[in-house]
């Protein structure tokens, strides 16, 4: 289980070693593109999509990118009904969503991982705790711990604290359990167990940080890029006390016909996203870049299919 934690960066394609990872193709402007490119989907990817589309429109001034953010589920619907050509999602499509897409189009949608988001654990700034183990995190968040230990933790003293705080329960804060973040945590952290009903589910990552900043006994999980001075980020440790990170992939779904491929504009957009400059933008906005090998493989896949048409 904890070995799996180390390899949390789950791509859709198996990594393969590429000869020259530097200077990936795809960033150079070739043919002029015009028209509209519509994306509909995830809230959490929204700011990044804005940045990417601005950069993209600078490259192709005659192309107009429209972005709508209404949650990951809207991406699946919009792609199925062809009202959008790109669907940013913070989770993979569920089986029902994939089936519906296949029923309409006759082939499965294509998921392209575009960036990684690091999840971090935050506590109040006055909290003396510095690090927490993943197993302790599971025991805190799970209603009935499933992974290794059967014991649930509720109080700060269970995490080794002393003083007045140790007598108090740990107030848990996080995103809403229907969100992509929580589906990911449910699989990777809780071993498919259930979250405690006492977990405070707040509407956004910024709300989680604010809530933790105001609660002395609070502990919250949110995207690492939302960190502020009012909270302290805890180090995450595995059972061997090595520092690790919780990362999950963010995706852009695409209506990719196996024979005729996707539109030129969509492919150009994805090439820009997966290029060095696109990933650089993601890093500047607090996300993590995909490993170079994975990117070149993805680019190759997109490029090869394009040539085949």
């Amino acid at each position: 289980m904890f070995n799996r934690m180390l390899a949390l960066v789950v791509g859709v394609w198996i990594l393969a070693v590429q000869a020259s990872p530097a200077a990936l193709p795809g960033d150079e402007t070739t043919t002029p593109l015009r028209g509209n490119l519509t994306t509909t989907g995830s809230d959490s990817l929204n700011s990044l999509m804005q940045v990417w589309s601005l950069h993209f429109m600078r490259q192709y001034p005659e192309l107009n990118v429209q972005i709508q953010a209404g949650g990951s589920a809207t991406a699946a619907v919009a792609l199925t009904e062809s009202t959008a050509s790109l669907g940013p999602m913070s989770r993979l499509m569920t089986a029902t969503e994939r089936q519906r897409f296949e029923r309409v189009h006759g082939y499965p949608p294509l998921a392209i991982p575009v960036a990684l988001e690091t999840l971090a654990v935050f506590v109040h700034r006055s909290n003396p705790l510095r690090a927490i183990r993943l197993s302790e995190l599971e025991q805190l968040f799970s209603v009935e711990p499933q992974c290794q230990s059967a014991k649930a933790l509720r109080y700060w003293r269970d995490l080794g604290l002393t003083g007045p705080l140790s007598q108090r329960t740990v107030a848990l804060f996080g995103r809403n359990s229907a969100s992509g973040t929580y589906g990911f945590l449910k699989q990777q952290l809780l071993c498919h167990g259930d979250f405690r009903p006492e977990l405070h589910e707040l509407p956004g990552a910024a709300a989680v940080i604010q809530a933790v900043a105001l609660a002395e006994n609070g502990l919250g999980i949110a995207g690492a890029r939302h960190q502020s001075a009012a909270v302290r980020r805890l180090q995450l440790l595995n059972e061997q006390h090595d520092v690790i990170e919780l990362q999950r992939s963010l995706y852009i779904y695409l209506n990719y016909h196996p024979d005729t491929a996707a539109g030129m504009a969509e492919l150009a957009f994805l090439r820009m996203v997966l290029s060095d400059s696109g990933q650089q933008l993601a890093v500047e906005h607090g996300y993590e870049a995909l490993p170079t090998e994975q990117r070149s493989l993805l680019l190759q896949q997109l490029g090869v299919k394009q040539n085949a048409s």
Partner: protein
Amino acid sequence: MQARHYFDKISRWSVTLVGYGILLAFAFIFLFLIWQVWPLFQAGSISPVASPDTEPEWHSLYQADTGQQAELHLDNGLQERVVLQRDGAIRWYLQQDESWQLQLRDQLTMAPLSDAVLLPGSRTLLLADGSAQVQSWFRLHQQLIARPGISVSDTPLLALIPVSSSSFFSLHPGLLQLHQVDSARLLAELRLPSDRLQHLQLSDDRQWLRLDWQSGTSNWYQIQWQHPSVSFTQLWLPVHYEGRREPAYVWQTAAAADDASPKLSLVPLTIGTLKAAWYAMLFATPLAILAAVYTACYLPERWRYRVKASMEMLESMPTVILGFIAAFLLAPWLEQQLLLFFMLLLLVPSLVLLSSAVWYCWRQQRQQQAEQPGWFVLLIPLLLAVWLAYIGTPWLEQWWFDGSLLLWLGERGIDYQQRNALIIGMAMGLAVIPSIFSLTEDVVSQVPPSLAQGVLALGASRWQALSSMVLPVAAPGILAAVLLGLGRALGETMILIMATGNTPLLGFDPFTGMRSLTASLSLEMPEAAVSSSHFKVLLLAALLLLVLTFFINTLVSVLRQRIRQRYQQL
């Protein structure tokens, strides 16, 4: 003249049209929700088809075998294996670093085992022993935990066939049944044309079923699953899910974790909505009614208008602001100053009442007529109460609560959460006060003045006239006002999303939070896959809310109608 006549007619028609349009729109929303929710309660089916349009990827689930083995070896695809003997001896192995480690060993007391399966992707073990009940067990660490048995047909069982992590087939002579494990429900049933089944195959997406007979022929079937994890039992009764020690009401939706079937109990959400409304009404009702009665009966005309206007302005305040203030100012303050809050709650009304009583007695002793006390007479005890509370709280906390009320509560097993029902009571109470206030004020001030004057003429005091004449007459109207406030509280969303933790808890504990139907709708709707069970249950929640508020608002209208008639009769 003619033109004016036509204009009159047209405007009358258009008004009627708009009125009916609104009614139609409302009916349409209602029908749409019912139409959307209806499939949730439709039974699944297995229906024969000629052959699937395109040959899907088949998975063989069952093959007729001849002899009975002494031991059953089962695998669930999670690196776990179970070895089961016919007498019920069970050994459960886990794969760790290439070797199989014994995790648990147990002896189940049962009649000789006829068949057993381990559901794929889950830790649930199903055991059949010849009776019409299939036993369901799961492993939790080193323990086997029993779940409620699943009733199958009482004809002899030929085989159990695992389908998914929460469903299985039971094969009987001439009959194939599809069962759901969590709710122990029969999903669908199929009469088989022959007893001699050789091979059972299921397609990749579990939509198609292929049965091969020993005679060499095959039949194809389509499985209509509908919504296997939604039933009355799962929505409203405690369910024993895998991985838990006892049955519980669970609202746990993870759209992203595809493999886990959603746990959709509406009980915590309904209780959350009722709890929020209850605490809001507890806070708002006495304040709003007393303020309205005072405004209607005691305030001079000039002031009445001002107070009423400002109250109505308060009604238009966006609730998102109230929610924000409650979450980021009130909640942390209350956590720090919980005892002070209770002291103020206790001291302010009691000191004000006490001082009015003292003032009244003092005036009577001096043989002066008891008038209304001036505002300064009220202000002095008010300030005194606040001062006393501030001075007394640290002392009381030190002396009685060992230095901290929160820790004192914690030692007695009362968990104080920062975002709790008290905060909601105050914030949402503030949002519903204006609606209760303005209707109550209308009703009380519209009581025919002749009634009160008659009582006053007989020598009653103002308070006697109010309590014995005006309030009883206006009572149905006040009830309508309270119900109107309740309707508003049940439908409130923004304050609940922002100021509660959206925790799907049970019970009416004032120090814990809640998750309401409305908050769940607005938080989860954007993430739920369209027309999934989760999505449809959210629509069911919306329908429930619509029916509830519709019912309450109808009641309000009926009560208002009655009070209007009563006033006309007087």
